[in-house]
């Protein structure tokens, strides 16, 4: 029968040559590949002693930012929660009382703010939805836990520390357009 493509190869039990017959060159060749891999750069690192370098826009653990004066930026507007495809975010709002102006930026703040890290898919939609520049994802990792409850993160973990040394820098996540906008100090948003 005539073949359709002429690409089929005729194989046969060809007689092996002497070198092939003793198998030694093939064994040496195989060993060479094995030994070569011993000296290659390792694909793994010994975490947590060693840490891999992350991209500045890596989407890891969230942070609730404070402004320069240390006031919480979040106003519990609920846009992150409505943008969240995994419905991981819940919050309870409260009204700022007189005398708390140094704690909260605006008259409304999040009394309770929870992210369920088991639900979170780290898509960054909350960061994008936030009108107050309050929530950012960072290049920190969420550690594993033994209890499910321990993975519901509240404000004590999410909120940026007041201490200047422990502040979390998110400037690398901001686009040039945002940085340009932030230069305008006349706007309330940037004060």
């Amino acid at each position, binding site marked *: 029968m005539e073949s359709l493509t002429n690409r089929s190869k005729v194989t046969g039990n060809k007689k092996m040559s002497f070198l092939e017959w003793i198998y030694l060159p093939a064994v040496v060749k195989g060993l060479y590949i094995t030994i070569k891999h011993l000296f290659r750069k390792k694909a793994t690192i010994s975490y947590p002693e060693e840490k891999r370098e992350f991209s500045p826009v890596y989407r890891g653990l969230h942070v609730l930012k404070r402004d320069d004066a240390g006031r919480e930026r979040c*106003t*519990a*507007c*609920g*846009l992150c*929660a*409505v943008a969240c495809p995994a*419905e991981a975010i819940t919050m309870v*709002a*409260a*009204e700022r009382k007189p005398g708390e102006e140094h704690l909260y930026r*605006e*008259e*409304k703040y999040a009394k309770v703010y929870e992210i369920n890290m088991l639900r979170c898919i780290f898509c960054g939609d909350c960061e994008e939805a936030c*009108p*107050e520049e309050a929530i950012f994802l960072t290049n920190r990792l969420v550690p594993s836990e033994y209890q499910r409850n321990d993975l519901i993160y509240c404000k004590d973990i999410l909120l940026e520390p007041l201490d200047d040394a422990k502040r979390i820098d998110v400037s690398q996540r901001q686009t040039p357009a945002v940085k340009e906008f932030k230069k305008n100090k*006349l*706007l*309330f948003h940037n004060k």
Partner: protein
Amino acid sequence: MKLTIDNIQIDVEPGTTILQAARKIGGKIVPPAMCWYSSLEGSGGKCRTCLVKVIKGSEKDPRPMAKLVPSCSTMVQDGMEVLNITSPEVMQARKAVVEFLLINHPLDCPICDQAGECDLQNLSYAHGLAETRYEEDRRTFEMIDIGDKIKLHMTRCILCYRCVYVADQLTPGRVHGVLNRSDASEIGTYISNVIDNEFSGNMIDVCPVGALTDKTFRFKSRVWFTNPFDAHRHCEKCKGEAVVWMAGKEILRVTGRKNAYGEVENFICNECRFEKKSVTDWVIEKPRKIQHSSVISQNHYENLAGNG
């Protein structure tokens, strides 16, 4: 009388306004209205968002009108030809009006309880600029207490006068009004009167922005986290037909039933609005239909286009 709006012809009664005629046609050609309210006599003519272009005055006098006219207070004449969304001039003017309305608006939508059902928010989303060109300080006012049920945020007010008309036409004695002039004009009670009329709560419903909000709902939730249901109850003072906004089994807020143009069909009394917050007080009829373009239908995939 024959009238043509954006090349759509319609027959209307004498004495109707262009806006009313446009609402009869319906659809996208209806000019937006921030101050005009169909059930409030004398309202309209203040916000200028409903400006339209008249290219033919009437059959007898076919000259075009010299300036853009407010459609809410311009009467229809026979043979009139009006352009709304088909005229670039009107769209440009509307954009400018929105910019003017936003000059003094604080844009504190993240903390405003009206966000999500705010007429100004929708209007600026449809017609406004994404950024502001205004660099001066916005006007600010001292917070005044106008009662234990209604919260006044004067900074958000666009001076549409709707609440004044409501107090005039629904209640026997109005105790609040617009004080001062021009830039300094503000809603106030002057002599610290507390607004406590039985129908005063309707000021919240007619307010197109978040200047007047419900104190019993203040910061409780966001509009899009609550589910609206049509409900009714037996009430001596009003018709008792309202919308209850629920989160779980809790009624967080009660408002009047609004039509497609955001106007309340039947005004409700303060007892229904502020005091009846238990599920047992109301007979719940059905879930309220929400336009799929509304933020309230976010994450509700049953409301996607086509289903409602």
